[in-house]
């Protein structure tokens, strides 16, 4: 099917969690004509490959605010989208393996409390009560927040697409944006592999690929793709509720409502670039680290192992900003491995920007300018 010369108020590039949440909020707030363009199938990007973890236990105000307000929205989403999304608030248990790490986690909890988050500091024994398969040796302390959650990325994308279409929006898959027709400082047309579309406003929600879109517009976005590997096991009856993570070991794992365990570990040697193949490094390092933390899981078989990209910025914090070179483009990218959890609030903010409203939170901390001006403080709460 070819498309040509149709005109939309808003064209969103990328049908991942960020693009679809934006379209959904745009329509919900009264926006009318919106189309989301996706180069592959629904879920082919990072969202469809991610771990589905959602937490407000972060180490910087920027991420805490986005995550907290996102969980407020997540709590209502299953009802709004008429799908349970496998959304479940089983908490996050964050483990500290050294005094230094314990200190950072304590500071994070302190900061979280300032924003009204009910995170707690637990002894290793208290942590074991929540996750009975935990091996407490080596654990200095843990932090826990019951409101943290998980959801199925696929269920979320499909439910969003359905809702967007019901509300009069469009989602077009297998349609890649390959260029723009720019006049002065405005995009007039978006050129795709299936023809061109006219638009008033354009959103770049292409995650790991957003730098490429930036380049097409003559703008340098500091977002690099980093391969990240993840696996799923066979199903078991309910074993433990929270997502368990360790920043120092780079590991996270959780049991989904259907019974499978999903988890990943970051490879510190990973270089930026579009390397999609799984590596032989992962299964051994993941298994070894996993059974140090939860020895009983040695009896559970890994079923599949795949990869996706973290879309990483220099400070591991997002970019939500107007383009610096083109007047009618907004970038929402650079979530550095946690864009799924914050997508509801990001979608809402971008929708507000599209509708000419002032964003309900201050977006200055998410500006592109901060990198140029050297105002960057690295997030400490990144896993993998």
């Amino acid at each position: 099917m070819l498309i040509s010369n149709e005109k939309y108020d808003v064209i969103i590039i990328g049908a991942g969690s960020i693009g679809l949440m934006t379209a959904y909020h745009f329509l919900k707030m009264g926006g009318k004509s919106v189309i989301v363009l996706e180069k592959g199938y629904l879920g082919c990007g990072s969202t469809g490959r991610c771990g589905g973890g959602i937490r407000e236990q972060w180490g910087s105000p920027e991420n805490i605010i986005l995550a907290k307000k996102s969980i407020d929205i997540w709590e209502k989403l299953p009802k709004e989208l008429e799908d349970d999304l496998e959304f479940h608030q089983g908490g996050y248990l964050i483990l500290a393996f050294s005094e230094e790490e314990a200190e950072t986690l304590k500071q994070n909890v302190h900061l979280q409390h300032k924003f009204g988050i009910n995170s707690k500091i637990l002894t290793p024994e208290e942590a074991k009560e929540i996750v009975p398969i935990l091996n407490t040796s080596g654990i200095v302390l843990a932090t826990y927040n019951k409101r943290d959650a998980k959801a199925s990325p696929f269920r979320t994308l499909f439910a969003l697409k359905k809702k967007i279409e019901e509300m009069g929006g469009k989602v077009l898959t297998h349609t890649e944006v390959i260029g723009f027709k720019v006049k002065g400082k405005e995009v007039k047309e978006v050129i795709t592999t299936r023809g061109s579309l006219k638009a008033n406003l354009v959103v770049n929600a292409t995650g790991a690929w957003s730098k490429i879109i930036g380049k097409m517009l003559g703008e340098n976005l500091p977002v690099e793709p980093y391969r990240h590997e993840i696996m799923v096991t066979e199903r078991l009856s309910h074993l433990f509720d929270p997502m368990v993570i360790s920043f120092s070991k780079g590991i996270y794992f959780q049991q989904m409502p259907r019974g499978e365990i999903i988890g990943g570990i970051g490879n510190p040697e990973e270089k930026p670039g579009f390397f999609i193949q799984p590596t032989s490094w992962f299964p051994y390092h993941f298994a070894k680290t996993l059974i140090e933390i939860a020895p009983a899981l040695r009896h559970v078989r890994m079923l599949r192992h795949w990869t996706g990209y973290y879309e990483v910025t220099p400070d591991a914090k997002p970019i939500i900003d107007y383009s610096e070179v083109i007047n009618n483009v907004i970038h929402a990218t650079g979530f550095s491995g946690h864009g799924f959890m914050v997508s509801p609030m990001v979608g809402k903010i971008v929708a507000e920007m599209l509708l000419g409203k002032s964003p309900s939170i201050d977006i200055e901390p998410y500006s592109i300018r901060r990198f140029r001006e050297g105002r960057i403080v690295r997030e400490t709460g990144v896993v993998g």
Partner: protein
Amino acid sequence: MSLRIEDHPLLDFSDKRKKPVKFYFNDREYKGYEGEPIAVALYANGVKKLSESPVKHRSRGLFCAIGKCASCRVVVNGIPNIRACQEPVREGLKVRSSKGLEKLEIKESSPPRISRPEEIETEILIIGAGPAGAIAAIKAADMGAKVLLVDYASRIGGQLIKQTHKFFGWRKYYAGYRGIKIAKILEEEIRKRANIEVWLNSPVVGYYEGNIFAVLKDKRKIVYVKPKKVIIAPGAVERFAIFENNDLPGIMGAGGAQTLMNVWGVKPGERVLVVGSGNVGLIVSYQMAQAGIEVKAIVEALPYIGGYFVHAAKVRRLGIPILTKHTIIRAEGTESVKKAIIAEIDEKWRPIPGTEKEFIVDAIIVAVGMYPDTTLTRMMGITHKFVKELGGFVPLRKRTLETTREGVYIAGDVSCIEEASTALMEGIIAGINAAKSLGYNNPVLENEAQEAIKDLEKFRSGPRYAHIKRALENVII
């Protein structure tokens, strides 16, 4: 009641029944033989239901018999999700059926030590030791290459180890011998060659960056294999038929039935209905009759018999009716199949009301075709194309059988669902060309590869294969 085959006109199972052992299933004691899979020992004892599905709690039992479907999950000595068709019986083993999702008994408190997988190199890795992979190994080794041949089965021969009938085709490609005999010949030839290493019971389970294959050696230990060239010969996967209650224990594919009967000497049932009259359906029916099983009928949806006339004639001579323009519409039973309901169908394949017939059976064997097993080639990023005549998605390939990825060759049913003789021809072509690309030369063998290319052309030029020959042109690059 035992379903064990005691006397078979062609097969001898005594080497698999050396040491009787006792084990427990749901707290009842059963007898089996050391080394045979739990599911086989239970089936022999008439126990067909092994587990329940997690959501609807439907009965599940042995289905593929080769570790691929997970419908035989049981709990063994407290460890859940063990495939009963893969786990050998041992004295005193405590087995329990799986009821939906199972608990993990939490016993471990300190982490066990695991070691980093060993990484080895080889010149040519061949995956699958069916006729295609086995002959490829022999020819590549004769060219001078160092070969590692891996297969998850416990013997060399692929489908051949389950075929008691004599194969058709050309003498040059072992026609006239029984399948089991061809497998023996290939095995002997492989054992003679010092530059072929064979790993049986060793599935290839992963493919990683840097051309690394993960092999689960002896089904115990991951070994990373880094080959210079690869020949992929994993054969085919069975299709299944859709009808009500097609998941009841006692209903299985032809492959599962053959594994039970011809590898382990256990009958799939006493009274059986077969679905599908292609060569596989006809041969399985014949083999079951040979093993003393009553085959009630073969149902075939097409208006004609799918397989060769000779096979159909053999089956008919035994008095087994072949009902064309019929299909199975339902199976009945709770813990295992008890009845099969069939009906005649119209030109649009709809059952005609009033034509239903009932058969009292304890097994239904489904033989409705196969498709190429492209799990590995897809994982490797090789380009595929859907070609119906070849069985589904198949990898693109050169005439030398090299795929779109340099150094990766295919041979046998993975390239196109055909026969043992064509699998052998393709194995010869792939084996010799892979070795040649490593710099080995041997004019006589290279000539043999050329001959095999010509033989393939000739074989496919008969009217029966004309459609395959035409379709193949779409996948040659």
